[in-house]
């Protein structure tokens, strides 16, 4: 069975130096329970692939960063968290920046077994420096490489016992693509249901992508109040 009793147990096999994808856009759809378990786990020198690194005040991945466990971050938007900016300025964190759509597409390409793709986004800009560029149909494109991970940590609303996942509203964001791009994908969910209870056409992440499932212990509202969300 894929369901694990504890989030820490669900990280079995995760080691120093690994690449870990972590879902979420800000804290929405971020696997906060698994991030806490990752802090507890102790692995260091991690490469984290995530759109951003949590929010100020040690929320989400910002907590892992504060513990000094992240060596490199691959994402699109680190500016909103001053703790990330400070870590870069101190030379403690290396950052690889991609346009957000290129990040999403590179993760999808990783999961889908592609060797890379040409995109017009970012072509000719600073973010294309050192990358192959070419004109395609008269428009400059840049070649981007796929992203894959040793572990992918995702957040969903419901899972069945096989590991089929359904996400709630904009909780999806990077989670489905990351679920497919991780060698070991661990999902934390609000609800576990019986196999057959999820309508087959509504499943966002088919079970073949999910190795382990745990119950979510931390909800977004546990770390960020509605007042903060509306600010």
């Amino acid at each position: 069975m894929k369901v694990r009793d504890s989030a820490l147990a669900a990280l079995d096999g995760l080691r120093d130096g690994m690449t870990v994808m972590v879902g979420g856009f800000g804290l929405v759809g971020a696997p906060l329970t698994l991030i806490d378990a990752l802090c507890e786990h102790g692995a260091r020198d991690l490469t984290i692939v995530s759109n951003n690194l949590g929010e100020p005040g040690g929320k989400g991945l910002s907590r892992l960063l504060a513990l000094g466990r992240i060596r490199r971050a691959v994402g699109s938007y680190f500016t909103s968290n001053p703790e990330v900016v400070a870590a870069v300025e101190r030379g403690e964190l290396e950052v690889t920046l991609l346009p957000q759509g290129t990040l999403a597409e590179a993760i999808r390409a990783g999961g889908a077994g592609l060797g890379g793709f040409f995109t017009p986004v970012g072509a000719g800009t600073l973010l294309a420096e050192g990358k192959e560029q070419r004109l395609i149909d008269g428009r400059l494109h840049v070649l981007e490489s796929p992203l894959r991970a040793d572990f992918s940590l995702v957040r969903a609303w419901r899972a069945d016992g096989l590991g089929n996942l359904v996400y709630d509203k904009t909780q999806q964001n990077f989670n489905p693509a990351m679920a497919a791009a991780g060698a070991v994908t661990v999902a934390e969910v609000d609800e576990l249901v019986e196999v057959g209870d999820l309508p087959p056409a509504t499943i966002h992440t088919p079970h073949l992508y999910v190795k382990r499932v745990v119950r979510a212990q931390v909800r977004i509202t546990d770390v960020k109040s509605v007042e903060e969300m509306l600010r």
Partner: protein
Amino acid sequence: MTSVRPSVRSVIAERAARELRAGDVVNLGIGIPALVPAFVTPGSVFLHSENGVLGFGDTPAPDAVDPNLVNAGKQPVTEVPGSVYFDSAASFGMIRGGHVDVAVIGALQVSARGDIANWAVPGKAVLGVGGAMDLCAGARRLVVTMTHTEKDGRPKIVEELSLPATAFGVVDAVVTELAVFRVVEGRLVLVELQPGVTLAEVREKTGAAFEWRDAPTPEA
């Protein structure tokens, strides 16, 4: 001639709203673009947000906030009839593939030929780009909203970008508190002066040559 800031922002947002057509799929950036919905007939356009929603409504009351439903500014929004959710890869496929009719976005600089800079400032660590490049490169029409000049008076509309580019030749319209320009086949064209603004003022505060449509009397 200069207004207080909030009013300038409103003037720009109100005029930008008139760039939208009924039925358009519209992606709004943060800042001034986020003010645009206040000037649009509710339900006349479909708001797209790159984190994975097409068709959403206003900010909810505090007791109606759903923490799993936010826009790209991480602001809570609301579901409306016809709302659709999808993942980031699908969402940026919509943007990159030219399926978003209009993006309204802020900028630091726009060049006469429609290049745009809105993500990086030289000398500062470049740690965020978000969806800016995707929206600038992918939206079918790109409407830039910005104040006409920097606070120190330096023009933001320039012959050549001095800041790192976000995308090249992609701007369709620029809306400021002074004027509206369009970029037509790589040429900058003044199409409208905001109320009370003179051509002379726009010339003075614009760092690029521009054409204008209605063959106005040449000025010195």
